[in-house]
């Protein structure tokens, strides 16, 4: 198991290096150097930046400086918000995105598992048809449209109740969190629901479930001890890729709901061509996603004894 974890971590580090490199060269493919854009940068900052990033040096040298900075976790200073370090921006805005994403992920996983169980249990009856219809809607309607519709819904609700029950946007209290998190998690929830449904349907037909019933276990025991655990396994493996979807989905949701998260900040930086912020957040996000996928892989190893024990046997 230890060797397995080590191998995963190593390939993760390699991937992060590749992401950083790709980011660097993509940014340097921009015609001219990043500073020659028409957005006015004051001469002192310009000189400072040129020195700092070695923009007057050859590309290979710049790449070395860049990698060194990244290794030390130093992402530089924002072009458009003078004197603001990218590290500070990430430190300030990432917790917001992480909170939103985590709540969305929990909602998606719980909703997906419960919904998938419901549809599988009542297969081809009205709860199944109803939920699958919602799933199809959630998969084919873009997230920004769902976010906009949710805002319309909040406005309508507040009007019907006659009180500002839920805020339309913003951040700060728990009531700001629920609707955006739900909207953000919806697509993932739909995806996990379908996954859970098909995995549960397969397991309901499996021999060991018949064995469990033949032992005289109650339907509840059969479901929780034999079906649920095995059906959740494929859902757990999908959590890694899912987090990538939730992270990038967060850009739009934060934009629509005016949430001061890193995603909204990233989109703004992109629109303003704030190169250091773009590079810093891209590498940060990339590293974050890679680490999450590695963590989920390792977690999966602990849940599935077949993997856990095989890896131990190999090591």
């Amino acid at each position, binding site marked *: 198991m230890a060797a397995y974890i080590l191998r995963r971590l190593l390939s993760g580090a390699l991937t992060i290096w590749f992401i950083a490199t790709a980011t660097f060269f993509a940014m340097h493919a921009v015609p001219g150097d990043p500073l020659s854009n028409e957005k006015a940068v004051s001469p002192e900052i310009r000189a400072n930046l040129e020195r700092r990033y070695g923009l007057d040096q050859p590309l290979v040298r710049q790449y070395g400086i860049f990698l060194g900075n990244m290794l030390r976790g130093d992402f530089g200073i924002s072009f458009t918000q003078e004197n603001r370090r990218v590290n500070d921006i990430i430190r300030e805005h990432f917790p917001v995105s992480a909170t939103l994403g985590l709540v969305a992920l929990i909602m998606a996983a719980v909703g997906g598992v419960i919904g998938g169980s419901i549809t599988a249990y009542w297969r081809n009856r009205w709860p199944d048809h109803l939920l699958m219809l919602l799933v199809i809607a959630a998969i084919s309607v873009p997230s920004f449209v769902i976010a906009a519709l949710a805002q319309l819904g909040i406005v309508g609700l507040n009007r019907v109740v006659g009180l500002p029950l839920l805020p339309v946007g913003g951040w700060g209290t728990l009531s700001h969190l629920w609707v955006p998190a739900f909207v953000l998690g919806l697509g993932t929830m739909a995806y996990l629901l379908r996954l859970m449904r098909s995995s549960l349907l397969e397991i309901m037909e*499996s021999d060991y479930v018949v*064995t469990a*019933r033949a*032992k005289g*276990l109650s339907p509840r025991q059969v479901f929780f001890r*034999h079906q649920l655990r095995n059906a959740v396994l494929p859902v757990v493996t999908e959590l890694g890729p899912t987090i990538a979807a939730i992270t990038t989905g967060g850009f739009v949701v934060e934009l629509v709901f005016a949430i001061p998260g890193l995603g909204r900040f990233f989109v703004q930086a992109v629109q303003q061509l704030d190169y250091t912020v773009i590079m810093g957040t891209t590498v940060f996000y990339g590293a974050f996603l890679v680490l999450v996928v590695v963590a989920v892989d390792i977690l999966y190893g602990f849940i*599935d004894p077949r993997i856990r024990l095989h890896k131990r046997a190999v090591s």
Partner: protein
Amino acid sequence: MSQSPESPLLAIRDLQVRIGPVRAVRGVSLEVRAGECLSLVGESGCGKSMTAMSLMGLLPRQAQLSASDWHFDTLRPGSFSARQWQQFRGEQVAMIFQNPMTALNPTMRIGAQITEPLRAHRGMSRKQAQREVERLLERMSITNAAYRARQYPFEFSGGMLQRVMIAAALACEPRLLIADEPTTALDVTVQAEVLALLDELRRERNMALLLITHDLGVVARMADRVAVMYAGEIVEEGSAEQLFYHTAHPYTEALRASVPTLSHGDRLPAIAGTPPDLRSEIGGCAFMPRCAYAMDICRETPAYYPLEAGHCSRCWRWHPDCPQRGLGAGDHG
């Protein structure tokens, strides 16, 4: 042992199972006595597994079942509630399946899977159950029981897993064990060991055994009595000896002929044709389209005609009025 005069442990008359348009079981009647091994024989799709599942109350949701005079000792399974079925399964009747590799939960320790019936029916604590597991595994000749109980199914071989299945099935000392093709998925050498173990346990506990198989070799070795099924009904029933030495139904005869032996020539005779479509009504004898002895009268449904004590055949050849009574009289077509 098979001729014990006491009343049967399990009796069911005229069992019918419908799944949608398919009449999977068409009027099966069975009796099993304590300590007896009854074997249900037939090719796949003939309804033998459906019969077993009916006896366990484990038919698929969309299946419809009807039966009369259904007894299990003093119990009446025909009128069980879902809760009563739960208490009945595992406690009174247990079942083992064809493929032990898929019949065990891959993510649960062996020990926990064996003790599930004990904890469900006897309310045993984890500690008590653990001691019981070791005793059971040792009885199944699995060495190093305490260690193996903590392992997972993928760490066991097929034969070992079938022993684990048997251990789990017998944990609550049921009075009837239904074994659905218990050795089909196993290596030939392991088959013999598992069969020997089953036979031993049956005698030791005076347990009834309903053995479902398509392997006549297994039947010859294990069964006190045999019921041959074809197209959802029993076509011949009798003691193992009667069936093998006085075969009384053309289908049984054809089955026997298709078992490979040294005396056959270079070609193994197969039964020509295919079993009937169970979705449509079958008028007359179901085997007639494939039968070498088919007669005009076979277009009408035959009854069970007795040959001698405990042996009967659902074939017009044994009707008292039939002029060329019996099989093997020569007119093989």
